[in-house]
């Protein structure tokens, strides 16, 4: 509970009313004074109750990049029997790009608001609590409360760098017309299930849809092996290397290229697809300098 500086105005009015009441010995002026005072007292209780006891859950959507504003969804549940008004939410330790305001939460209901934080650096960001603030009901008193809400969200590295995607060895080989080896680990098609095939290679999803059992076939790198390697970027700074690798990862994924990521003491095997890209970007996001 914090008074706004404008409470001085209200205070002056109260003093003036008191003066008028006492000097005129006027019961009505006293009545007006006590009316004002009691409303202020009630508003203290109301302002507190308006922000207290809210249950807040924060859901993070797909991670964004470090130069973008991270977006979170904040679900505010009002367990009490009275509606809440004009709630302004803040997240401890983060700056909001836009104000997050909820106009009204009816009793027993949940209202969501999107949280757009100001851009933060890459990595996993933890938050401990949300601050709820409201000037309801009288503008001059600010009700403030902390709602413990633990969680975290991930921010990918900024995509940057000017270097083109390194040519993969495999692509050159593919151009040369080499037939993919049947024992690679890149999926290239389905064939009819033969007894004895590894159960791990059965396309169970198709089975679940009622199709006959099929075996997934994997070959070597269809497009060759593309390694995005930390060591190839020695002339750049630490963050620039991370950004360049992140950018390459995205470009490779966009191009449908399989790729792997090599960082000092960390290697992500050749792969493709959204989950693979996510793994790579996450690895880059949390990668720290050696101590």
């Amino acid at each position: 509970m914090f008074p706004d500086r404008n409470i001085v105005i209200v205070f002056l009015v109260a003093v003036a009313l008191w003066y008028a009441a006492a000097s005129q010995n006027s019961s009505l002026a006293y009545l007006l004074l006590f009316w004002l005072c009691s409303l202020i007292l009630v508003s203290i209780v109301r302002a507190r109750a308006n922000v207290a006891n809210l249950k807040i859950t924060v859901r993070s959507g797909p991670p964004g990049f470090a130069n973008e504003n991270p977006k979170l969804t904040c679900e505010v549940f009002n367990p009490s029997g009275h509606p809440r008004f004009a709630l302004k939410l803040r997240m401890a330790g983060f700056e909001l790009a836009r104000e997050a305001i909820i106009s009204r939460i009816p009793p027993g209901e949940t209202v969501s608001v999107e949280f757009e934080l100001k851009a933060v650096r890459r990595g996993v960001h933890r938050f401990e609590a949300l601050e709820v603030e409201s000037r309801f009901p009288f503008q001059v008193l600010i009700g403030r409360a902390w709602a413990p809400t633990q969680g975290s969200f991930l921010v990918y590295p900024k995509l940057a760098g000017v270097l083109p995607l390194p040519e993969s060895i495999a692509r050159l080989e593919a151009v040369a017309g080499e037939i993919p080896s049947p024992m690679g680990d890149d999926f290239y098609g389905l064939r009819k299930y033969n007894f004895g095939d590894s159960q791990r290679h059965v396309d169970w999803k198709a089975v679940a849809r009622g199709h006959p059992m099929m075996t997934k076939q994997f070959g070597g790198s269809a497009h060759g092996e593309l390694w995005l390697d930390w060591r190839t970027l020695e002339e750049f700074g630490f963050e620039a290397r991370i950004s360049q690798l992140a950018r390459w990862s995205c470009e490779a994924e966009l191009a449908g290229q399989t790729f792997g990521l090599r960082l000092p003491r960390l290697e992500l095997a050749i792969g493709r697809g959204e989950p693979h890209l996510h793994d790579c970007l996450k690895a880059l996001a949390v990668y720290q300098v050696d101590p």
Partner: protein
Amino acid sequence: MTSHQSPQSNRLGRGSLLWVVTGLTMAVLPVASTLPIWVTLAFLGSGVWRIYNEASGRPLPSGPVRLTLFVIALIGVVLSVGGPLSSDSGVSYLVILTALKFLELRTPRDFVLIASLGYFLLLSGFFFSESLASTVYSLLAVSVLTTGVVRLTMGPPSAIRGGEEIRQTLWMILQAAPIALILFLLFPRMQSLQFQLFRQEKGKTGMNDEVRPGAFSQLAMTREEAFRVEFDEGNIPDFSAMYWRGVVLWEPMDDGFSWRQGVKSTVPQPLPRKGSRTVWQTITLDPHRQRWLFAMDHPIALEGMGEFVAGGILESKNEVRKRIRYRVLSEYGGRFDSQDFGRRMKEPSRVDPGVRALAEEWKSGDAKPDEIVRRGLLFFREGFRYTLEPGDYRSGGLREFLLERRKGFCEHYAAAFASLMRIAGVPAVVVLGYQGGEINRVGRFVTVRQSDAHAWTEVYLGPDRGWVRIDPTTVVAPDRVAFGMDPFAQIGDAASRAERLDRISDAVEPKGLAGFLQHLRYNWDAVSYQWDLAVLSYDGEMQSLVYHFVGLQPNSSAVWIVMLIFLALVLGLMSWLMKQPRRRGRSGTLSVLYRQFCDFLAKRGVNRESWEGPVAFGERAAQRLPSVAEPIRVVARQFAEARYGRDMDGAVQKVEAERTIRAQLRKLRKELARSAG
């Protein structure tokens, strides 16, 4: 399920503006009559302009424009009401400042400021009227202002249901009421605080300590209340006995048409005479900024702050600046004599020969004082006319009144009669006060208004008869005294006798609507009388009674402690209540509506299985009741969407869904009722 609301920096929202402009207008209206008309118009214009401006989204006037307007307005007020601050001109300044504030009403801070100005405007309204009606009105205005502030804090209107701000404000006022009551009863009132910034001319009586009937061409009288009288055991004396004694004027001035009070002296209280009728009365006197304490003629004992002064009248030690109460024992029904009168024989300083001849004529034949009085009254019976608009007598004075125009009201007759008596050698004085009043049968009290003001005379008829009240006006206009002043004030001399009779409180009971209205008015008067007693006259003295009642010493710190404990209890209880979780069963409107829907269909034989979702159930019900298939499907779909749907944008759409469901439920009932009937 997200709600986006961008902050609107310069826009306050039309809702809150409308509220606050309305509230301020309400605050200004009661004092509008005391303002220069242009101030009121500027205020209204500026308020309306600000609302229009908000709606059209145009920018507010720039700083230099506002400064120019400010200077012009200030000069205007100084020219209209004068520079120095007094209570009257102060209100004009306040109103014009509020009007100017409208032009720069931009931030929430401005908003709080202008709402505060509203409190001052209402406060200034209290200087003009303290009645229950104006108090209720003021509290209404201040509630409207409060609603405006609450609306402002609620932010943009998108998710706020209509009337939400009213509900919240009313709720808060209800919560505030007990706190206000505690403060009102226990907050120590400062008795010693007598400093004043400026004095207000609150409560002017139509009465002065002199009469100059010749100087006024007409008598302006208001229905404003002067005082209220409650008689012990409710035995209200006859209307004709109700002369309320106020001031005695001892000295005739100039030609005898004007009288003044002259020197006063404090005398011991007169004792009641044996055999006379006495009555105790409790009088609640409105402030009149004089020291007179009115009482029924003539008072013989007083309880309360005040003293007897020469002439058998009561005076307060200080000017009566606030409503006061006192108890008086009065003697009535017989003649009275009071040893302290002294014989007042002084003639007017210059008597017109014609007037002297008239008085000398009454004295002829060595007439006794009572014979002189009788002759004098006979003289007034012929050719005089009672009117409230006699025109002025500035040049002709007493002679012109008595011998030429012969038109006037009570003050003319009292002053003239007393002067004539003095010239004829009979001691006489003019008495000012009130006569009659309105008997409120509901509250069992008498309301005496300014329009009941009256002047009469007292003459000394010798040691055995003492001083006798002679009211020459009764000779000229008997109804004036019998029925009160009002008929004359309202319907003039041409009033029919029947209409006048209607005015008599006790004699005639009006029928029909008039009776109902009168009854209503009596009830309202009775309530506001209680209000006056309980609230307006609640002061330090009454407060000490309350302290004693709860066992507290006045002026002790215990008072503060007890008050703070009370406040803490109330506030603690309130915050505990606010903390309570929502009660089960009274869940959101949506579920209530859905339950209504299910119950309704159950009555028609379609029971929802516990595992059945709204859409499946709705479909089944629609097939069973094909005549109302459409509304059933709509309700089921709306409920499913509002409760489980993904793209519900917070409260707004929920409210809309509720509205749709409600409408469809109505349709459903109507349709089925029609098919059944």
